[in-house]
């Protein structure tokens, strides 16, 4: 494959949710919240999934990666780039992995022995940022097959928020919108141009202090503090023009997109975003707003939603997918790709 005719494509993807499902009413009933807030009505989140006792970000990531590798029908040895996009990197004892890269540990477990491995950190936009890097590596011939993977064990921030008096710590309320999950993608080479395209990536850094995740100072585990309304407004105020610029730059037609996925901060927020998108570009063919029972699984959200769409038999070979990603910071980036051949036959 000559350099000019070398491009990248999505070979496979997978999402994984741990078995344990927790109803929102069990921890965020109106009686638990300031001013008897109706959390379910406000967010549309009915439930989320949580890890089992022995699971952490790593175990989740491995589950998704194995599924993606199997679907790609690849030998692990043929993967020469592994990027981890997990923000949490949290084990079952709530310790945070720091070094070397989490990707190195994931590759070792999967017996991917000769791959370059590193981590990308860009909040919930880490996954699409990683996909951009992997696509470039494959297109330039520096990599053949890339595994981009993330496991997010973030529900300990729910426990942290529950320990707080939410009247006094209203910025902890957004912590109740998360769930655990994992996602993995395999990218590989193709001679066909345009099977993966990216928008201009934006960081609106004037909003970089609206959502902060870090270790809790006086208790085991992480915490997150979010000015949720300001963050949502930061996205919604820019979404229409962002989408219009993205569609133009990517050279795609809005009405030809088969499947659209947004980063699901909450199902209600996605609806608001969809209205803006519709006003700016026209009707959305198929918006997959299916996070009511998974919640926001950070960097893994799109992969989890793709898996749900696959389970529902909505996805077919070569159809087009448009995914919009947001991350605190505030990152905004979109990816457009063709679904892999044979996706409808995957188990």
């Amino acid at each position, binding site marked *: 494959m000559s350099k000019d005719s070398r491009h990248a494509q999505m070979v496979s993807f997978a999402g994984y949710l741990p078995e344990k499902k927790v109803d929102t009413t069990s921890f965020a009933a109106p009686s638990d919240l300031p001013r008897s807030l109706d959390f379910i009505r406000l967010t549309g989140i009915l439930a989320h999934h949580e890890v089992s006792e022995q699971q952490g970000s790593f175990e989740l990531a491995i589950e998704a990666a194995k599924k993606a590798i199997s679907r790609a029908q690849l030998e692990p040895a043929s993967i020469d780039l592994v990027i981890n996009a997990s*923000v*949490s*990197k949290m084990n079952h004892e*709530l*310790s*945070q*992995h*720091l*070094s*070397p*890269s989490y*990707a*190195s*540990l994931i590759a070792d477990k999967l017996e991917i*022995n*000769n*791959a*370059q*491995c*590193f*981590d990308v*950190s*860009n*909040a919930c936009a*880490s996954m699409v940022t990683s996909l*951009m*890097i992997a696509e*470039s590596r494959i297109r330039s011939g520096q990599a053949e097959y890339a595994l981009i993977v993330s496991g997010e064990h973030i529900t300990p921030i729910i426990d942290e928020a529950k320990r707080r008096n939410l009247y006094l710590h209203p910025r902890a309320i957004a912590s109740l919108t998360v769930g655990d999950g994992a996602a993995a993608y395999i990218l590989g080479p193709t001679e066909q141009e345009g099977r993966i395209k*990216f928008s*201009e*990536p*934006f*960081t*609106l*850094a*004037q909003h*970089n202090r609206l959502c*902060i*995740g*870090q*270790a*809790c*100072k*006086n*208790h*085991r*585990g*992480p915490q*997150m503090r979010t000015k949720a309304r300001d963050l949502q407004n930061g996205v919604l*105020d*820019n979404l229409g*023009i962002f989408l*219009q*610029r993205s569609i133009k730059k990517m050279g795609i037609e809005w009405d030809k997109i088969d499947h659209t996925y947004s980063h699901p901060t909450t199902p209600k927020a996605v609806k608001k975003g969809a209205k803006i998108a519709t006003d700016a570009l026209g009707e959305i063919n198929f918006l997959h707003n299916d996070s009511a029972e998974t919640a926001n699984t950070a960097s893994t959200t799109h992969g989890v939603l793709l898996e749900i769409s696959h389970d529902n038999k909505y996805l077919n070979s070569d159809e087009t997918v448009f995914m919009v990603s947001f*991350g*605190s*910071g505030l*990152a*905004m*980036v979109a990816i457009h790709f063709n679904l892999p051949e044979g996706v409808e036959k995957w188990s």
Partner: protein
Amino acid sequence: MVVMLSWESTKIGYNNLFKSTLKLAKKAIKKAKISQEDIGLIVHGGVFREHFRTEPAFATHIHGGLDIHCTNISFDSQTCFSFDVTDGSCSPHVALQAIADLLPSLTNKFALLCIGDDRPTKHCEWDYESYCVVAVIGLSGDGIKLISVDYDNSNFNVNFTTTGYFDDKIKANKFEKVGNIEEREKESRNNYFSGDSEWLSGKHMHEFLQRIDGQNDTLEHCIVDRSGKSTTAKWEF
């Protein structure tokens, strides 16, 4: 791949990374004879962040601190994109590669490479010399040219890790290092430089930048992480 057009580095205290990075970035941008508005990408590489912060990316704070295109999106507004990468001490090379990967496709063709670590909490034992390094990277121009970055996993030991944890006895967050490879000391000869395996990313880059004065031809810069994995960047002068 890319060209390092200018660079600045300095030793910092326990948690001066943010302020130092901003200061050095302004100097490096001036030295490169570009304006801040020309920056289209900011990539930070490091391991330790204040309070073990996980989000947002440290690079977004640098981005905001420099006030680069911090406006709402319009049809003709310019863009800058920021994120972090990490792979132990090899982070500088990974960050350079990420810049080389993405910069050609961006509208603004200059990037900031930012390297460094903060002591996460005052309870963490910190026997490191912490350095902050900032470089302006372009696709061409006068500077040192990055030819390639190679990696070597052959000595990687998966058990040699660093982990942040909550110490129940003192009710505070610390980190612990597990395992230790055979210590590898600084090695410097004509066309090759490699630092100590216990150095942090910032010191690796700082010492490399001290080494390049008067260099001609090529220089290979090898970073061996304490996990045993290594990266080698080949530079042309």
